[in-house]
């Protein structure tokens, strides 16, 4: 019988985007999410031991084979196409507001940034980093935006819990988040330390 780790390896190898544990488990009757996790751990240990150029990363709620960072210079040089385009400052600012405040409308984004943000929102939406997640209550029922799964993949986060946590940000934010937590009684930002 083929080992579970080999099955998982085959699936990860053949996929160009992250695969969720549940998806991986569906591949074989003998697999469940727990076994998938075990197989992933096994693969990682194996790749580590053999000093492979890649390993299994967890991004955007799934697992993916990615090359290790030390090979970045080689790969960047190899491909003549300009590498992954970085986001502009305004785009990052807008995305930060969305990531922490979602769902959020354009008006709030513009109020926080102090500048018009319609164009930036449109660009982010076109790049698949944000999406319309609903409509607000206010006048004209404004569109509300949230981040996408691709957003997590782009920044290498496993989930929104991986966002930089309050203690890494200026004090004001921590206070704000605390207030929010007290208000809705949920402990946002509590996650396994990355």
């Amino acid at each position: 019988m083929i080992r579970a780790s080999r099955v998982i390896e085959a699936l990860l190898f053949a996929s160009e985007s992250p695969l969720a544990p549940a998806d991986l488990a569906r591949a074989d009757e003998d697999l469940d999410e727990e076994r998938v996790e075990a197989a992933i751990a096994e693969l990682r240990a194996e790749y580590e031991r053999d000093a492979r150029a890649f390993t299994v990363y967890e991004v955007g709620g799934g697992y993916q084979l990615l090359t290790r960072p030390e090979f970045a210079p080689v790969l960047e040089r190899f491909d003549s196409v300009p590498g992954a385009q970085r986001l502009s400052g305004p785009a990052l600012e807008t995305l930060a507001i969305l990531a922490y405040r979602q769902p959020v409308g354009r008006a709030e984004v513009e109020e926080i940034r102090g500048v018009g943000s319609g164009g930036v929102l449109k660009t982010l939406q076109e790049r698949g980093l944000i999406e319309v997640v609903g409509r607000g209550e206010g006048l004209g029922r404004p569109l509300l935006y949230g981040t996408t799964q691709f957003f997590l993949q782009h920044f290498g986060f496993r989930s929104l819990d991986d966002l930089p946590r309050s203690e890494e940000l200026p004090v004001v934010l921590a206070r704000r988040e605390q207030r929010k937590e007290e208000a809705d009684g949920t402990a946002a930002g509590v996650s396994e330390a990355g």
Partner: protein
Amino acid sequence: MEAPALQAGPFDIDLDRFHGPLDLLLHLIRNQDIDIFDIPISKITQQFLGAIRNLQRLELERAGEFLEMAATLVRIKAQMLFPRRGDDDEAEDPRADLVRRLLEYEHFREAARLLERAERTRSRLFARGFVEARPAPKLADLPLETTWDEVETALGGLIERLNAPETIHHVRGREIKIDDKIHEILAALQQARRVEFADLVAPWGTRLHAVGSLLACLELAKRSVVRVRQVSPFAALWIYRAKQEREAA
């Protein structure tokens, strides 16, 4: 007192560097270690106005955003001049709202910086499919390596050729018709029951005639008008009248 400071140093500012008026304002405050909860509004207003002197270079929308902030600062400055009643704790500092906005913006600016760091880290990992199969480059994408000298040389050659005296060679092949050759063979076979191919070709003596005769010969054989026999390779090739051959047999 502040006038000289407006001319140089941290206040000679390139507005394009800033994402907006809040960004600029924070820059002024943080770069001078000003206590954000006690902003010297007069000084900061003056510096802000100095920084946006070159506003006309910006597009209208962006300029409007900076002007709006300038107006807010001037308003706060004016409000600061009115004495607040000391016994009224409820009276809010005119700067309070601005401070709240600045802190909120600063928080997200910091968050954006952390996102950028995460993006940079992530961009160093590559998934399968990163190195794509490469399509042949489009002609337009290839760099041109031709120099003007080469164009000139080519032009020179062209002119030379145009000026060269016209020498015309008319090359015309002699026409050999397969039909003529067929008649020739049939005529020869009128005289004799068989004829050797070499004899057929001999009077003409050129390869082209030999080819013509051979094709005619093969054509006749195909029509079963003649039969062609050769005992061994390179031996004499004999052409027989087919009908008589059959009669003879």
